[in-house]
């Protein structure tokens, strides 16, 4: 055989045939019981009291033999041993399942602990968790907000006034100083009609909306977002220029003489007021946009930590739910384990004890009774006396079978368990 082939050699599994144990010849034993029954009956003259004692003796004698007969015990116990093996397999499975669940629980609890720790630690060392956060985001945010609020107020006032002047105001000589800024713009617009008031009051929000859009587009990377930002700046500038042009035109028309040329763009561009209006509006609008963008970024900064904590809290919640589900699985498995352990213990007691075979006993018992009754038939000629003896002995036999619970033919074997 090659060395390679040699390693594939399997143990010789052919079981050594167990030498047939000298099993007592059943017929011989049966005959012995028959003879013993016959002899005892003859000696006792079929007395039912003696019969009762004899049956007890036969039962005890057989019980003793049954216990000592290893071969028979091995055969009778085989199903219990098989069953014990099966129960042990199931027990090992459930123990493995339980152990896996407990391992799972420990790991989830560990994770929950680590999430809770992260929630505390992230405030101290946000960079450990990959969060690029300014150490003092709150101060910068509030400073920005402090600056933004007056600028917003300024934009509101400026655009209400400028749009009123551009679209609705009639210039008269007394109020030329208010051409650009009119302190009563809103109340005048309100006096002219509520639609006019709504118009002038909402125009500033259109500008702020454009500022907000610029901030949002800045978040998106790519050329397209820059193009959009540029377009938004251009539109705002054009809109501002239109306002300035309209105001400047109204001023020009008020001051013009019969030989003044008609108002046009070149006249508007060369006017100081025209540029004054644009700068008072557009430049402040840009400043507003930048400050707004800055405070939004600061807000997101400390929102990063908050959202980190929020996500960790959610993860903890999910893990706790998972834990609950696993913990629900534990009691049935534990119950099964104790059930299997109980069964195994019970089977072990049976295996350690001995099995009394009713079936076998009844065979010998019947032989003994047969011998006893036959002796009565042989020794008593008087039919009446014979019948009396039969009757009383039958009663004794019945009582004996009931006493040892072997009157039921379905009952295969009686278990004598080891009791500590």
């Amino acid at each position: 055989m090659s060395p390679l082939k040699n390693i594939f050699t399997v143990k010789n599994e052919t079981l050594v045939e167990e030498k047939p144990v000298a099993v007592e010849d059943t017929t011989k034993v049966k005959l012995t019981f028959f003879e013993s029954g016959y002899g005892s009956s003859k000696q006792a003259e079929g007395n039912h009291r003696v019969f009762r004692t004899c049956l007890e003796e036969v039962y005890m004698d057989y019980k003793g033999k049954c216990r000592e007969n290893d071969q028979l015990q091995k055969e009778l116990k085989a199903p219990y041993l098989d069953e014990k093996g099966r129960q042990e397999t199931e027990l090992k499975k459930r123990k493995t399942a339980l152990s896996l669940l407990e391992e799972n629980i420990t790991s989830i609890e560990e994770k929950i602990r680590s999430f809770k720790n992260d929630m505390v630690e992230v405030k101290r060392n946000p960079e450990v968790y990959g969060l690029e956060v300014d150490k003092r985001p709150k101060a910068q945010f509030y400073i920005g907000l402090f600056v933004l609020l007056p600028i917003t107020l300024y934009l509101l006032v400026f655009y209400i006034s400028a749009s009123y002047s551009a679209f609705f105001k009639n210039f008269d000589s007394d109020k030329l100083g208010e051409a650009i800024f009119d302190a009563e713009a809103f109340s005048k617009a309100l006096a002219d009609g509520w639609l006019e008031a709504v118009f002038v009051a909402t125009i500033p929000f259109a500008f702020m909306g454009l500022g907000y859009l610029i901030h949002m587009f800045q978040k998106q990377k790519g050329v397209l977002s820059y193009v959009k930002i540029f377009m938004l700046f251009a539109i705002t500038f054009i809109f501002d220029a239109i306002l300035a042009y309209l105001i400047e035109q109204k001023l020009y028309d008020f001051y013009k003489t019969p030989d003044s040329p008609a108002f046009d763009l070149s006249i508007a561009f060369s006017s100081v007021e025209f540029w004054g209006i644009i700068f008072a509006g557009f430049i402040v609008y840009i400043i507003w946009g930048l400050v707004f963008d800055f405070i939004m970024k600061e807000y997101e900064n400390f929102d990063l930590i908050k959202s980190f904590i929020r996500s960790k809290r959610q993860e903890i919640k999910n893990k706790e739910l998972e834990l609950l589900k696993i913990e629900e699985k534990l009691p049935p498995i534990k119950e099964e384990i104790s059930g299997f352990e109980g069964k195994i213990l019970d089977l072990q007691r049976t295996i350690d004890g001995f099995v009394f075979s009713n079936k076998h006993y009844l065979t010998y018992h019947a032989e003994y009774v047969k011998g006893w009754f036959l002796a009565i038939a042989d020794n008593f000629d008087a039919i009446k006396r014979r019948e009396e003896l039969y009757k009383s002995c039958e009663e004794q036999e019945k009582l004996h079978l009931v006493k040892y619970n072997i009157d039921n033919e379905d009952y295969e074997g009686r278990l004598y368990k080891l009791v500590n």
Partner: protein
Amino acid sequence: MISTELKSHFLRLYQMAFSDDNFDVLEMKMLYHFAEERGVTKAELDAILLNPSHNSMVPDSTEEKLSYLYDLALMIWADHKVEPDELTTLKKYCLKFGFLEDNIEALTAFLLEKAKENLPKQELMNLIQE
């Protein structure tokens, strides 16, 4: 990638180990994780853990026994390393399958070596029959 045949062979081996006193609960736990890491689903493994056993007899022929053991060796090599626990398990299965105790070292070494080379099973069988 672990094939379906490999998985089913493993599940049968796993089932067998439960009725073997040589495999304790810790080892069964290790094998559970071993299979899980190699793509055997939790549901398949839990079905074994929580359902009554079907009779999983040791294969009869030497070829079939080696086929099972070789599949286990392939699964061991799936993560490109052999842990001592995995080697012990393979040896226990060799013993369970009735191979001679003196040959266990050589047999496991042979199976793992061929599994490392990823030798097709048919070629392994040819090698055995040479």
